[in-house]
């Protein structure tokens, strides 16, 4: 095991485990609706966006509506557009790795990859590739297990999905304590809260991200002038 893999294992372990448990829940959910285990497994592998997969499962039981699926999937995952903008520089010149790094860029993987400080001498892109892979494998493995065993599984642990909340909190705190200027972090919190209260759970994140870009545009203009 090389250094990059070891570090990635350490950083991805909590989420990989959390993804496995959540994946099991998702697999069981599909199993109970009568789907073959290949459905959750292949959906987990090809889409790799948890919330959409749960929603899609319900759509699979309704009438065929391709445009709705395209539109809904794009809107639900539109926040990834902003992750991509943030990763343009870190993924630059990654060669063949770039395809998989972008393919597997879910919320958690993005957050870990962006935030990780890599010791001198280690290859950051290699590290990010392993993080992406561990999280992806955890999710697919869980979905497959849940889909295969269905209701036979009795070792569910309620509340283990809190690991995702803990990840984002930890990354936020570590970002906050390490930065000189808190403008972005604090504005993000405020805009997120404001948008949630005003626009509700469904679309608040997309709206908050757009507002954030507008705010940063004005700040950028001000800094350029200064």
């Amino acid at each position, binding site marked *: 095991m090389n250094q990059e893999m070891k570090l990635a294992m350490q950083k991805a372990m909590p989420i990989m485990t959390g993804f496995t448990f959540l994946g099991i829940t998702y697999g069981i959910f599909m199993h109970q609706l009568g789907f073959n285990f290949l459905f959750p497994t292949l959906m987990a592998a090809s889409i790799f966006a948890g919330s959409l997969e749960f929603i899609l499962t319900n759509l699979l039981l309704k009438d065929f509506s391709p445009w709705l699926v395209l539109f809904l999937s794009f809107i639900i995952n539109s926040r990834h557009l902003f992750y991509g903008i943030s990763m343009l520089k870190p*993924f630059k010149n990654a060669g063949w790795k770039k395809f998989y790094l972008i393919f597997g860029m879910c919320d958690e993987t993005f957050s870990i990859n962006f935030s990780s400080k890599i010791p001198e001498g280690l290859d950051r892109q290699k590290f990010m590739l392993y993080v992406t892979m561990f999280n992806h494998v955890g999710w697919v493995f869980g979905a497959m297990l849940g889909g295969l065993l269905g209701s036979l599984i009795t070792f569910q642990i*309620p509340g283990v999905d809190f690991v995702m*909340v803990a990840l984002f909190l*930890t990354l936020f705190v570590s970002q906050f304590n390490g930065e000189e200027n808190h403008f972005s972090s604090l504005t993000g919190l405020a805009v997120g809260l404001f948008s949630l209260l005003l626009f509700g759970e469904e679309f608040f994140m997309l709206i908050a991200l757009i507002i954030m870009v507008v705010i*940063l545009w004005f700040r950028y203009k001000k800094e350029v002038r200064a």
Partner: protein
Amino acid sequence: MTLTEQVITILLAALATMATRFLPFMIFRENKPLPAFVSYLGDKLPPAILGILVIYCYKEQIFSFDQKAAFGLLAGLVTIGLESWKKNMLLSILAGTATYVLLMHFF
């Protein structure tokens, strides 16, 4: 829905998801210089995204505060406190999650 239609539905969902992930990289190609504001966004946006994700985690609690929400808040404080104090990501995440799981189990 037939099996073929189900398969198409899944492929379309995967395609739309990949569009959200690949589009920025297709618009701003490696061989062309990055517009200055996009580069600026790349640096300034992530901390804000983390802030918005934190709000996302608590979106249900904000509208309906019950026992489960209180556990989530408590476990969150353990996570934040530990991370500020020990600066050990693994420890903060595991301790925070363990707090939540135990609270859910015993109460």
